[in-house]
């Protein structure tokens, strides 16, 4: 509150921002999302998080699929790979395996993630690939101009559900929790600070971190997931929630009417990279002969 009243002196702020340095994670060109899009929040959150973690631009790769959210890599000044619809996770996995030193951030929207890409999520999760998956969930297909997505609410009217959506929306957090994701969190585009903190934590987490980011589509959804509605629905995760309690996390995830914002679940377990190093050690020790010889 108060900081709103305290006068902010632009040149000081600018100085602070320049000094703070997160601008260097931005691309030169302006994001092409619709003005007001929640994705700006992620973009900004990520740049701040990367800066906070002191990651060098050259060591970060942002991988995306197809969709509004997937335009993301173009707007951050890191290495980026804008790939195919639904394939962000396998590609990101490849990048990570290709060069372990890289910090890999996978981004995508709900269609990219839970429709065409749904088949890849369990595997990236259970393998505990050491990367961060930011899913920008606005419950609609924006790039194709407004059709239902797997997370669209029942009864939602879109160009593809002119008579109302009758498909039960799926519950991403519940999915990920049951997919053995080692870090599951939720944030809201309308709360940039919290979002930034969550992104930071997610990146810091060793292993596969999944952050669902609730966001409105300001262009094609004027009724359901608006800033207003979301803003009223979301709530802070209960103080007493224990992130190591998977069942509690699941129960929490099922309270979809009032999405909790925060860390749902976290566990420490070997990452794919570590498993592979382990395999390398064993390989040296065992010196197996390949099948057929």
């Amino acid at each position: 509150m108060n900081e709103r009243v305290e006068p902010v002196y632009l040149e000081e702020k600018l100085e602070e921002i320049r000094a703070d340095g997160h601008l260097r994670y931005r691309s030169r060109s302006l994001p092409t999302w619709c003005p007001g899009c929640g994705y700006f929040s992620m973009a900004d959150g990520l740049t701040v998080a990367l800066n906070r973690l002191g990651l060098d631009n050259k060591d970060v790769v942002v991988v995306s699929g197809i969709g509004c959210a997937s335009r993301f890599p173009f707007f951050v000044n890191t290495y980026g790979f804008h790939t195919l619809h639904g394939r962000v996770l396998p590609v990101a996995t490849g990048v990570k395996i290709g060069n372990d030193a890289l910090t890999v951030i996978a981004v995508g929207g709900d269609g990219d993630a839970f429709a065409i890409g749904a088949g890849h999520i369990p595997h990236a999760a259970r393998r505990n690939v050491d990367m961060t998956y930011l899913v920008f969930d606005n419950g609609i297909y924006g790039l194709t101009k407004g059709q239902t997505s797997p997370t669209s609410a029942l009864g939602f009217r879109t160009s593809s559900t002119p008579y109302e959506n009758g498909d039960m929306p799926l519950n991403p957090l519940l999915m990920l929790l049951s997919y053995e994701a080692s870090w599951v969190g939720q944030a809201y585009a309308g709360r940039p600070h919290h979002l930034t903190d969550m992104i930071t934590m997610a990146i810091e987490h060793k292993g596969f971190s999944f952050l669902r980011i609730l966001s409105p589509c300001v262009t094609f959804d004027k009724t359901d997931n608006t800033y207003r509605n979301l803003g009223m629905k979301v709530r802070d995760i209960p103080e007493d929630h224990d992130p190591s309690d998977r069942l509690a996390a699941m129960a929490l995830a099922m309270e979809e009417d009032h999405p909790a914002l925060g860390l749902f679940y976290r566990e420490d377990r070997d990452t794919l990279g570590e498993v592979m190093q382990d395999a390398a050690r064993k390989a040296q020790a065992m010196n197996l002969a390949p099948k057929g010889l």
Partner: protein
Amino acid sequence: MALTNRIGQNTDLNRNGREAAAESDVHYSRDPRDFGWLRENVPCQAACPAGTDIPAYILAILEGKYGDSYEINREANVLPGVLGRICSRPCETECRHGWPGNGEPVSICHLKRSAADLKHRGHRLNESLYGPSGKKVAIVGSGPAGIAAAHDLSLMGHDVTLFEREDEPGGMLRYGIPEFRLPRDVLREEIHNALRLGVELRTGVSIGNGEGEIPFSTLRADFDAVLLATGCMAATELPLRDDPSGRAVADFENVEYGFDFLLDMHRGKPKKVGKRVAVVGAGFTALDCARVARRLGGEDISIHLRTTEEYIPVTRDEILEAKAENVGFLGLRTPIALKGENGHLEAVEFVQNRLGGWRENGRRKAIPIKGSEFDFDCDTVLVAIGQRTAHDFLDAELELDRWNNARTDENGMTSLEGVFAAGDYVKGASTVIEAVGQGREVARAIDTWLMGKPRRVPAVRIEKVEAPLRQRAWDFIPRTHMPTEEIEERCANLTEEVEKGYDDALAHEEARRCYLCNLHYKIDVDNCIYCRACIEVAPKNCIKMVEGIEIHADGTYGKLLETGEWDHVGAIWIDNVECIRCGACYEVCPTQCISITRNQLCMVEVE
């Protein structure tokens, strides 16, 4: 410098009837950048010599709180009802709403009046008093400057004695301005309110060296400080071709200085004019003379200007009203001779002018055209080309400036220790609001001088505002015109007020037009996600992606340095100079990172 917000607290109370805003929602700043912001962003207030918090009082009106609005006015100017009628309105020419592309300025002055008119009858004044200081201050002259100073000094706990030559206080307000413009009951009430907190008013008492007059030196002896606010109590002589001091004026019975003409009339001396009246001059006095002449039965009344009506120092409304009353304006002429026989003037000889270059006061030069002299026949001539100060009442040497006005330092003190001066006496003939403003300023200076230290300093009060108080649609409301008395009616009667004032509906409608420029729309860069939703809905080029900002020598801000390169966009920032406070951006911001504060000048105590 440690600041408290006691005054702020009070102002909170009277401002918007709401109980004081939460401590946390208010902040006080004395940062030049915040003062600078106000200067640049609240042009009306900046333009107001008294520094009236115009947006604040208009907001009060918008909220239907006329009383509050009135009190807000009184903080800067103890005579709102008066100024609400006869102010020269320097604010309105600066009004943002009048800027190119924004339409017409807000009727700030009329709104001020409606605050006075429409405050309910049981209205309680709000004054915050200091304890007695034991200091005595003498004020010479009860014009607007004197009254304002007297009021403020008395609040500060000093014993003030106000000396007035005439029978009633008010100076030019009482004796210069005709009643149809300024009803005397309004004047009397506000003066009374200003002085009743223990100011000793001594009317009919002259300071001077004549008999029955109190010598200036006595005042200096009896009082800790003396304030000279005697104004300009002499008419400026009319320079003629072979008569630079215009002695000729006195030679004709039907030629008179407008100043004296009005003074006499208001002292109760009956006045007459002929059928054909020529007024020479271009100020309020000239217009007043013309309009009075109309009411005194004059039929063919003309005002003769050296330049043209576009360049005269009166408000447009005044000119229109005069014209409505069938007063003619005849421009580009300078009187060079008065012609007549045995003390009766028959014609005025003018020389035709052409417009010349600009003068530093923003008026145009008039350059006589050789051989273009001509005669203008008339029955009465009223000369109202200005007034000047008189110093003959002093018994001490006072340093004067090149206009023969008292020279003062930045604290309003003259060359004489403990002797201060304010109002027209310092400025020369100027506006009422300037006088009021000066009165306040000098009062503070005197207080500081008396107490040996400033007790109150100006600060910027920054208060959180929860929501935009306006709608974009209001920007398209046309300026509300002041209802006026029918021509016949008014011309039949010298005292019938011409302007009827707004009723509640009109006042409210006009109040809506105000942009409330003191609302500071600010983007919280820490919360901003740079989504540019605000830019999309912006009505003007008022939200910009910036990488820097010009900083003036005095530490205030200049232009925003814009950029289109994402990695250089340090902030998305609202250009408050362009901003018309429509609130559209505030509404769309997904992260509510756009905050609104009301930034106001105020005085804060010095511990």
